[in-house]
């Protein structure tokens, strides 16, 4: 009788007490459909697999499981904003929109809502200025870093002189594609190379005019800022006009298997920037096999593991998890809020030792985030495609970007944004 009463009391208490979700919400704004799906799927799979690994192997972060929700944006800005609106009331700890267009729309919204936004290797470059964009982070590298690293690599290839060289920038004719132009123009004045800018309208299925022009221009190097089908077509056209592939450098969004596999042997030697390691030769992949794939929990079809963009998704998830861990340490409790997550992101420190502990030795350049610098290290490496083995391999060590120049450009851009939006820069 006594036991029945106790049980009844416990049951009544359980009913009366509102259930508070004890988990960490990591929403995923993915695009698994539409023309850009070949790029969106591996990123989403990598992101999700890493979070699954953390849940399965470690029981979540700080003892709390990670809850993921997936919203399909189809790489469409309006749908991306709708996705954000659908999750913003559900304590999202970090939003990664995977699109520069969506990013621009979300910056004022997340700032008002107090939701951290991470745009890794895309988005608004000047968001690295943390005092103006306190809720936006774009570590570890941004587009201006990419442009600078590409030029630093070419300087290294040419005994530190690009005087008299001609470099073509072939770019997606969009806000994304135009991002590196001011940096490259600045660098062209500084180093004395001629910059030829050639736009390609989306989607970039037909580029014969552009490559006829490149053939006429006879450039020493071609840098590409492309996305989707534009990349594969450009690499095919470069192969067609017999442009040396080792002199053709893509930004990291032009450096996936999707871009080179359709070209076959013609893509051999093509190079691209990357701000993370390539391949599966990292201990974390053994854990993913054991705790995720072998348990039948792999995202999607499980066939993207180890691809360039899968690795990027995994890296983004790893940085999100590390930021959440840091946030929990700072807050002193596991159930963190978006504001506490933001503080964790701002205090994030990725060291070589920590990367090794995570099973990702030298996968990323070490970096620290601060209130002033939301942009990370800015370092990147060059990867090269081997058409025979169908693999990317790293051909350089980490190359630093010219952060002095980029800092100047970012500060000017951020100041203009602050003036337009009546923002008083400062640390939160």
């Amino acid at each position, binding site marked *: 009788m006594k036991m029945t009463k106790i049980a009844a009391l416990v049951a009544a208490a359980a009913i009366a007490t509102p259930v508070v979700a004890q988990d960490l919400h990591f929403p995923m704004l993915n695009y698994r459909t539409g023309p850009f799906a070949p790029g969106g799927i591996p990123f989403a799979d990598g992101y999700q697999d890493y979070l699954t690994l953390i849940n399965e192997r470690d029981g979540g972060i700080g003892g709390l499981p990670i809850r993921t929700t997936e919203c399909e944006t189809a790489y469409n800005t309006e749908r991306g904003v709708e996705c954000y609106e659908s999750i913003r009331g559900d304590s999202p700890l970090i939003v990664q929109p995977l699109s520069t267009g969506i990013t621009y729309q979300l910056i004022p919204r997340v700032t008002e809502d107090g939701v951290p936004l991470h745009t890794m290797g895309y988005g608004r470059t000047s968001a690295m200025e943390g005092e103006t964009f306190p809720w936006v982070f774009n570590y570890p590298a941004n587009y201006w870093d990419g442009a600078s690293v590409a030029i630093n690599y070419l300087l290294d290839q040419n005994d530190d002189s690009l005087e008299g060289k001609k470099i073509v920038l072939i770019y997606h004719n969009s806000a994304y594609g135009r991002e590196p132009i001011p940096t490259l123009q600045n660098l062209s004045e500084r180093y004395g190379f001629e910059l030829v800018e050639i*736009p390609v309208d989306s989607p970039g299925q037909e580029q014969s005019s552009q490559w006829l022009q490149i053939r006429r221009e006879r450039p020493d190097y071609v840098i590409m800022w492309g996305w989707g089908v534009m990349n594969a077509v450009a690499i*095919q056209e470069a192969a067609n006009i017999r442009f040396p592939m080792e002199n053709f450098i893509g930004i990291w969004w032009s450096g996936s298997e*999707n871009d080179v*596999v359709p070209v076959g042997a013609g893509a051999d030697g093509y190079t691209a920037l990357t701000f993370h390691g390539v391949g599966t030769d990292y201990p974390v992949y053994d854990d993913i096999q054991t705790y995720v794939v072998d348990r039948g929990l792999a995202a999607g079809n499980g066939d993207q593991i180890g691809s360039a963009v899968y690795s990027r998704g995994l890296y983004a998830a790893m940085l999100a998890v590390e930021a959440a861990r840091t946030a929990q340490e700072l807050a002193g409790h596991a159930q963190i809020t978006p504001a506490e997550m933001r503080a964790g992101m701002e205090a994030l420190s990725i060291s070589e030792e920590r990367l090794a502990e995570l099973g990702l030795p030298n996968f990323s350049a070490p970096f620290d985030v601060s209130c002033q610098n939301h942009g990370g290290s800015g370092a990147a490496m060059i990867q090269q495609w081997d058409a025979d083995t169908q693999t990317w391999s790293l051909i350089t060590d980490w190359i630093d970007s010219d952060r002095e120049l980029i800092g100047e450009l970012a500060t000017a851009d951020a100041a203009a944004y602050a003036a337009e939006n009546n923002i008083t820069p400062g640390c939160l």
Partner: protein
Amino acid sequence: MSDNVLFALEAAANGLTVGIMYSLVALGFVLIFKASGIFNFAQGVLALFAALTLVGFQTGQVPFSHLINAIFGTNIHDFGFTMPAVLAIILTVLVMILIAILVERLVLKHLVNQEPIILFMATIGLAYFLEGLGDIMWGAEVKRLDVGIPQGMSPWVDEVTYNLFGYGFYLDELSLWALGIAAVLVTALVIFSQYTKQGRALRAVADDHQAALSVGISLRFIWVLTWSIAGIVALVAGIMWGSKSGVQFSLSLIALKALPVLILGGFTSIPGAIVGGLLIGVGEKLFDFFMQPIIGGATENWFAYMLALVFLLFRPQGLFGERIIERV
């Protein structure tokens, strides 16, 4: 000859070959519009679906493997064999004919006598359905398509033009093949429509539905026939464009390139599709060549539509289209 003239000639020659690639897409639209008055929004997706199916057969991929693996926890991807290109093309043609039959049975049959806009809406639905089906059936990853058509700079054109002008023109061999294939395709279509019973029936339906029906021609058969031919044309377009960019979902967007071609050439004329493609191809390349130094590049997308707009103002039926006569 000055360098600029040579470069302009090279751009024009490239425009001709690219224009033929546009024509290949436009042909599918014309065939269906001519026979049934339907503007087939799904033509680009048909090209994508055909190319996906072709690569699937060639590589021995298991259809719906992603779905099967997700439901049953299996890990199957392919049959373990590859198929010669010719056999894979034949099988893909059969699949396109099957799609034509299904479209007629499941969609068109139920929409007889409906307004053209209803039929157009139905093809929009069909486009989304086929795109999703292609995704589930063959996966969304980018696929390499190789049926043995060579790509890259044509050494023959390079040598001949070098001997003539002292400057070797660049022309992609794939585009030259497209020229030959388009010629064969148009000839075959002309022979079919002029000299076969089915072809004459098709022309009769195109001329006058009611009259054709009154002499016993089966409209349903003609629809299956037209959609089958359009499916085969879509396969050819899918092969040519897919060889160039890989088979990926943006392949369906090539339909956007066909619209100005149709406006120029006329929606009901096969020669119009060819001439329209050539005009758009040459026009956009020359415009880009001359205007690029002044207004920057990337003019091709809007130039084609601008040219089409001018034609709409002065000759709305296009160069070869049937004159629009409204009797009150």
